[in-house]
């Protein structure tokens, strides 16, 4: 009896000790070289943008037999980044990953991504890198090497509530300039019993995109937030003017608000104009109980917007799976797949052949109002270099919070933000 108890104890201790070994053995298991190659794709985003990725993965698996891809949902862009960090630290990474475009540099810098140049050079199919829209391919590069292919690319737009425009007697078009945005917002604002019941515009303060629309403003005013050498230009006239305009609209005119969830405000009829990605078009139009129209970001001295959205990159560490991952990346961005993305979500064509693809052409003929995304493609430019710093987007978001919620003087905020960005650059690169 005693002996039996002792044996049980010993066996369970041994099992406990061996348990990690089993776990690690499971993780190390490789696909048999004969069967199809299994690869893992980490996707982000929900709603139409998420379903579209799942559907494309299914189609990829049906279209060929060499590779079996598995899509694993990881949450929003930011959550996917966190999991990728944990995966890198643990030495277990997916083969292909959806990345928010500014983060290519951050991961490529430290060797976490596989350079795609050798795959492009060795590719024997009719794959053609020059088919990709140059402005969109550009931020897949870090230094001279290509690390990512453009996938679900977007530009910032403004969306307005056309019913509300008619109600207050505004013309049936979007404000064309920033000054007009202010004027329209004033007309849309409604005050009831001393409280503002409706604002003209909601500026975005959310973590993921606050900086993006502000960049759009700065580009329109002819400036930039930072240059390729990480020189910060926030204290120059264009950025200062945009900051002052936004703050005046919120603090002085009280015709706009800063919101962390502007689209909910918009759908509830609390604001007339919001900023949004081209990728939000499908979801906003289907959820709204009123007519939603997407339009260009207002212009000032020029029409120019920062391009955003996601790219596909390859963290894979295994040679066989890398080649399978390359096939997968090509499939996901080919004309047929891209045309499907365009129709389901409102994202932009990433290749010339996708733009000319019969389905795409037919789709835009049917929904001409959705063509704004393609038209704005002519006025795009990559985002500011500081966006690729770990804390870059957050520092810019805090800047907007200080401007629109804190109401601090523009010159002080811009000086503080410049200092914070310079410090962040030194922390990241030195």
């Amino acid at each position, binding site marked *: 009896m005693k002996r039996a108890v002792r044996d049980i104890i010993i066996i369970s201790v041994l099992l406990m000790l061996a348990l990690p070994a089993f776990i690690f053995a499971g993780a190390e298991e490789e696909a048999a070289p004969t069967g199809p190659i299994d690869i893992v794709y980490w996707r982000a985003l929900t709603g139409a943008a998420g379903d579209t990725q799942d559907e494309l993965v299914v189609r990829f698996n049906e279209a060929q037999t060499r590779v079996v891809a598995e899509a694993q949902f990881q949450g929003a862009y930011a959550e996917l980044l966190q999991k990728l960090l944990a995966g890198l630290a643990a030495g277990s990474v997916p083969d292909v990953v959806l990345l928010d475009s500014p983060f290519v540099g951050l991961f490529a810098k430290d060797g976490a991504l596989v350079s795609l140049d050798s795959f492009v050079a060795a590719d024997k199919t009719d794959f053609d890198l020059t088919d990709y829209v140059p402005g969109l391919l550009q931020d897949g590069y870090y230094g001279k090497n290509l690390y990512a292919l453009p996938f679900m690319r977007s530009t910032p737009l403004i969306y307005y509530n056309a019913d509300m425009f008619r109600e207050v007697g505004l013309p049936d078009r979007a404000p064309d300039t920033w000054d007009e945005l202010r004027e329209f917002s004033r007309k849309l604002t409604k005050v009831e019993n001393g409280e503002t019941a409706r604002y003209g515009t909601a500026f975005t303060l959310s973590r993921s995109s606050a900086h993006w629309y502000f960049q759009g403003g700065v580009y329109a005013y002819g400036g930039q937030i930072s240059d390729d050498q990480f020189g910060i230009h926030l204290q120059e006239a264009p950025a200062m003017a945009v900051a002052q305009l936004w703050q005046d609209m919120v603090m002085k005119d009280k015709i706009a608000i800063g919101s962390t969830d502007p689209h909910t405000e918009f759908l509830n009829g*609390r604001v007339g104009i919001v900023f949004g990605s081209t990728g939000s078009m499908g979801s906003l139009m289907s959820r709204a109980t009123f007519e939603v129209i997407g339009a260009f970001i207002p212009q000032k001295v020029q029409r120019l917007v920062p391009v955003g959205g996601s790219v596909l990159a390859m963290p894979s560490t295994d040679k066989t799976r890398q080649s399978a991952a390359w096939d997968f990346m090509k499939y996901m961005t080919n004309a047929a797949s891209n045309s499907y993305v365009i129709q389901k979500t409102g994202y932009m064509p990433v290749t010339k052949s996708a733009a000319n693809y019969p389905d795409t052409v037919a789709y835009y003929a049917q929904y001409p109002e959705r063509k704004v995304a393609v038209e704005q493609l002519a006025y795009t430019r990559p985002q500011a270099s500081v966006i690729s710093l770990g804390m870059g987007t957050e520092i810019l978001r805090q800047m907007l919070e200080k401007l629109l919620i804190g109401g601090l003087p523009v010159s002080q905020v811009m000086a503080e933000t410049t200092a914070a960005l310079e410090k962040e650059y030194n922390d990241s690169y030195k």
Partner: protein
Amino acid sequence: MKPSVKNTGKANNRDKDVSQPIQTATPQVVRLIKKTSRRQRRNIIAFSAFIAPNFILLSIFTFWPIFYSLYLSFFKWNMISPIKKFIGIQNYSSLMQDPIFWKVLKNTFYLAAGTVFIKLAIALMLALLLNRRMRGRNLYRAILFSPTFTTSVAVAMVWGWILDPTYGLFRVFINSIGLRSPNWLTDVHWALPAVIIVIIWRSLGYDMVFFLAGLQSIPKDLYDAAKVDGASRLQLFRYVTFPMLSPTTFFLTIVSVIGALKAFDIIAIMTDGGPLNSTNVFVLYLYQNAFEWFKTGYASAIALILFVLIMGITLIQTRLSKRWVHY
């Protein structure tokens, strides 16, 4: 008894004495010693076997991360780079110069003070109330306890809607009686109080149940004796109930303070630390640094400071408790 007497007799020759009993030990004694040592050894093996499952898991998932975090706090590392750069105490010194860190520290203590005192006072009052015989007593207890077993994410989401500045239920209600509601979650001055209210609301029932249990374990005779001595109701509370409850109060104070210093989930969802970091607290700031801004070493330094703070505060509380806790 005998050997000890003998030993004391030869106290001036210790070395010899110590070896003496073993040399002169009978075979039975030798066997006894061997037997006990074998039993002891077996006991040690059994003891290790019993604690091994817990100890191994704790080592892997608790002790190792703590030490690794201490180690990382002396490095600059973004979790991506294969190289961790040793920078000494620079993470700690830049923390000391980080205005947001000080703000976060202030918020955390404000939150702890706000939740702990108000919450324990209300919980005690409710417990006293619901300890009396009254109709529907169990229903009230259940209702008050229910937020405790509601998922914190759901709590945060629903309260977020209730306190929403434009269409929130609270605003609608307050406006309907002719008052102005503050913009709870978007106002720098009101956001932290809003968060405190929600955290109190959520954990009130838990504390109340502990107070109820404490109240019910107070012997009736104490009250009877005090009443015979002519104690008023206030005196009954002051001299019987409160001292007898003090172990419960002490336990709840420590648990609540630690809970407040570790506050994360409700704040992350309701305000995400904003606006302007007015609701940012220790653990949230740590999380943001580590997983949103890729500053692993910096975040580890924050974690270590939090560890030291919690440890220190708990030690101080334990010290102070000797003055007012009666077991």
